[in-house]
């Protein structure tokens, strides 16, 4: 537990504080994880994934299949599943053709990523279709690089915006789940997405990664921190700390998307149970790529976050896994520029090959 004052003044304790060997790190990691899960309201057991195929599109070099997959508490997650097109002759006339494509044992196995969208009311469309914004179409770009891409809608976005509700309004969610958190809900939905990818014969289940920008960026390392099935993580503009954050209740209760309500209770008491460097550290030693910009208006306090990057680097180095961590700091805004995306994709290529 940290006081906000101490965080402002000195930052969080070094990750390797009082850690002399791997056992002690595992113990510390367990504590961080316990605090994290307690704060977000825990993660329920996963359910067996099932999938419904809604519609599909046939593009020149990939298929875009609009699906929904099952998640906990009898909910369904709408998603776009993008599959590289290997056989030009393949023609998907019927649903069984699509199922055959996804489940054929003879299929070539692809690397896969779960691609998580930023704060866009269009949700998955922003990253997996040509209608997406400039510098946000990483799902589309990755399928063209030969990855199977699962791009789900997070709650309150895309197809999950409730009728008569605005996007990114979590009030209805908390009415149904007063003790839980949107963060835990997103994590478990994304875990179910990983389970779905594992079910598909065309996916090499040992080569599944996560990528996202902004909301999708922190969701990608939140997911990898609790789910070791994720073998490589890319986070763009999603790493930010409590320290010096001008938006006091950014992670707690607020007018719109409330991530972790319990955080507001802590903050009102002048304390926080963790710092986000520690949450990112849960990912180690899984390969992690973090990109951030010094002119990011959403997460304007880059200096403490940059110190967090140094901390994470020290942890990976200490684990003798230094090459598995890449951090980039540039003078860009809240963006995922083409040159950074290329480096990020090369990172995924390397660790999912």
């Amino acid at each position, binding site marked *: 537990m940290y006081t906000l004052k101490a965080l402002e003044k000195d930052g969080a304790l070094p990750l390797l504080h009082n850690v002399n060997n791997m056992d002690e790190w595992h113990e510390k990691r367990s504590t961080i994880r316990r605090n994290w899960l307690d704060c977000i309201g825990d993660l329920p057991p996963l359910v067996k994934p099932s999938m419904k195929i809604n*519609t*599909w*599109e046939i*593009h*020149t070099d990939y298929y*875009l299949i609009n699906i929904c997959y099952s998640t906990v508490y009898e909910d369904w997650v709408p998603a776009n599943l993008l599959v590289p097109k290997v056989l*030009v002759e393949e023609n998907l006339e019927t649903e069984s053709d699509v199922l055959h494509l996804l489940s054929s044992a003879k299929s070539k196995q692809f690397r896969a990523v779960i691609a998580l969208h930023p704060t866009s009311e269009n949700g998955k469309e922003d990253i997996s*279709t*040509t*209608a997406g914004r400039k510098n946000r179409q990483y799902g589309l770009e990755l399928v063209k690089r030969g990855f199977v891409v699962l791009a789900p809608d997070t709650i309150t976005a895309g197809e999950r915006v409730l009728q008569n509700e605005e996007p990114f309004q979590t009030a209805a969610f908390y009415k149904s789940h007063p003790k839980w958190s949107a963060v835990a809900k997103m994590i478990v939905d994304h875990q179910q997405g990983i389970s779905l990818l594992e079910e598909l014969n065309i996916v090499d289940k040992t080569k599944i990664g996560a990528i996202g920008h902004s909301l999708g960026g922190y969701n990608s390392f939140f997911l990898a921190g609790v789910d070791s099935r994720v073998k490589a993580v890319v986070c763009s503009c999603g790493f930010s700390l409590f320290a010096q954050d001008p938006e006091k209740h950014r992670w707690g209760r607020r007018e719109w998307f409330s991530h972790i309500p319990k955080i507001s209770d802590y903050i009102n008491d002048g304390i926080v149970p963790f710092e986000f460097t520690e949450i990112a550290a849960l990912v180690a030693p899984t390969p992690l790529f973090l990109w951030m910009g010094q002119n990011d208006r959403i997460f304007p306090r880059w200096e403490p976050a940059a110190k967090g990057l140094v901390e994470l680097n020290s942890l990976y180095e200490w684990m003798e896994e230094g090459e598995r961590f890449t951090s980039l700091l540039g003078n860009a805004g809240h963006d995922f520029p083409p040159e950074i995306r290329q480096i990020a994709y090369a990172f995924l290529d390397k660790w999912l090959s």
Partner: protein
Amino acid sequence: MHKNLFTDYGIPVSAEEERTATICMNAEGDYRFVIAAKGFVIIVNLENDYIKQVFFPENNDEYPYSSFSSNGLFYTGAANMFMVLDPFLEQFIYYKVIENGEEIVGFSFSEDISGNIYFTSYPHCHLLFYSPHSKEIMDYGSMDFTEKYPGSVAVDHTGWAYIGIGTEKKNIVAFHLEKGLKKDLIAEQQREKGTGYIYLGEDGFVYGHLGASSSPQWMKFSNGDFETIDVEKLSPSFYTGTAFQRIHRYQEGRYHIERYSLSEGFIELVHRETAETKKIQFSYASDGAKLSTIYLGPDDHIYGTSMHPLQFFQFNISTNKTTNFGGEIIEKGGGGNIAAYASTGDVLIGAAYAGGKLYVFDMKKKFKKSENPKLVLQEESIHRPRCAIGLKDHKHIVWGGFPGYGMVGGSLGIYRIESEENYLLTHEKVVENQSTISLGELRSGDIVGGTSIETPGGAGSREKEAHLYVLDWETRRVKNSFVPIEGAREIAQIFVDEYDRTHCLTEQSIYFVCDPSTEQILFRKDLSSWGHIVRNGFAYDLPTNTLYCLLSHTLLSMEIQVKQCVEPKVVHTLPMSASSGVVHKNSRIYYGSGSHLCSIQIGED
């Protein structure tokens, strides 16, 4: 519900058109043949057949219009980017986006005796200067305040530049590079439709003529003036070939270029000393040629052509297979495209740019060069066809479009299939100074037409608003003509429903329904938030009595009702934007997206 929402069938025509070429020779005598194309150049070492494709800087994917060679370097322009390529380094060594309000720089090129490069721009006929030494670019400003096409330029040794200009009022301008003195060398009464033409002779003098006639009056220029000379006294040009086949410095190097084609991927050469021939064949990466209008033929296959180059293709809807018949099959097709189709029985008729060519396809027979399709006529006053309809009498095709370069107001053609006669109604008899770009047929057999005030052939527009008109079929006279939408420049699409209401789209995506007999506007809605219009965006589905409207980003539908006009509904946002349309078949809408052929479903099979 059929769930295959969208299919991209790929690129029917994977080819690019050459956009001029040069031979670049450096100080060591090494040389390269360089072909300019949309978005890239092809560098060819004619000695060892080595080919290199180099893309324009900054992903510039626009068309070049001219290219030039000087001191081993290659110069071209595309959109407002001026570019310098070193073909031996195989890279662009300099480029600049010129922000002077012009749309295309590098419309023509020349150089002075010091090796400085001069080039022109569209549409305000600027003259610009580039110093290879200092990398400085200077803009001398507009050389002609009314014309758009500065198609040729040359600089003499007395410090004067001469610019050949077209098209509505041809001109040759002399400009003193130091003093900034500008002179129109052509008397006002001589400035008719056509193009002034200029070239630098091998003797260093500038020559030119005013074109148009078969035996032009040649001129020799000096000190900002000219004298007329006999054709025998001309010095040879550094150029050979015409239009985009032109080659600058064609006489350099050991090989003479006999023929070349980028779309077909070959260069035929003759060794200048040994007369030995060789053919270099090559391929390159292409995003494909943009598709023009597509049409459902009488045999239920989709037909269409690409643009730049024109290649004719067929798409079999039942097998999803594309067959590209190439460019040769369409006689004199060149860089044009078939922009409008109509059919009756087993006859398919295509109206093509450039030159207002009408092709008749016999769909019962195999396609064969010079036979099927048959080029039946060319009509310069419909140089750029935009619309065609087959009438209910199964005997006539009515077609319209824009006229040729420098002309205002296109004709309306009435083609009788059996006799191959084409009856012309000039724009004065339809809507003066305007061109018919959309057509429909009323129950009475009268024709309803929509016009455009635009003049894509370089002339100045003389009108303010587009018209709808009704042509009495019996008398071939316009019964009434009116402005349906204030300020609209084009009535780009027409569909006449079973109640004789005319559904239209303007160039600004304003959808309106009117009764052409009473001139009453029954419904109007701005659809521009769903995209801009595409070539041929209306498709009618008889069983559901629904009119589909394809815009660049959205497919909309309008249910046709007896008593009222209903609000358009969004059917789909398009996964790939539309640029040309439209075929409706098997509950799918087929359309062109740039160079791709796509379809999107509209409902139950």
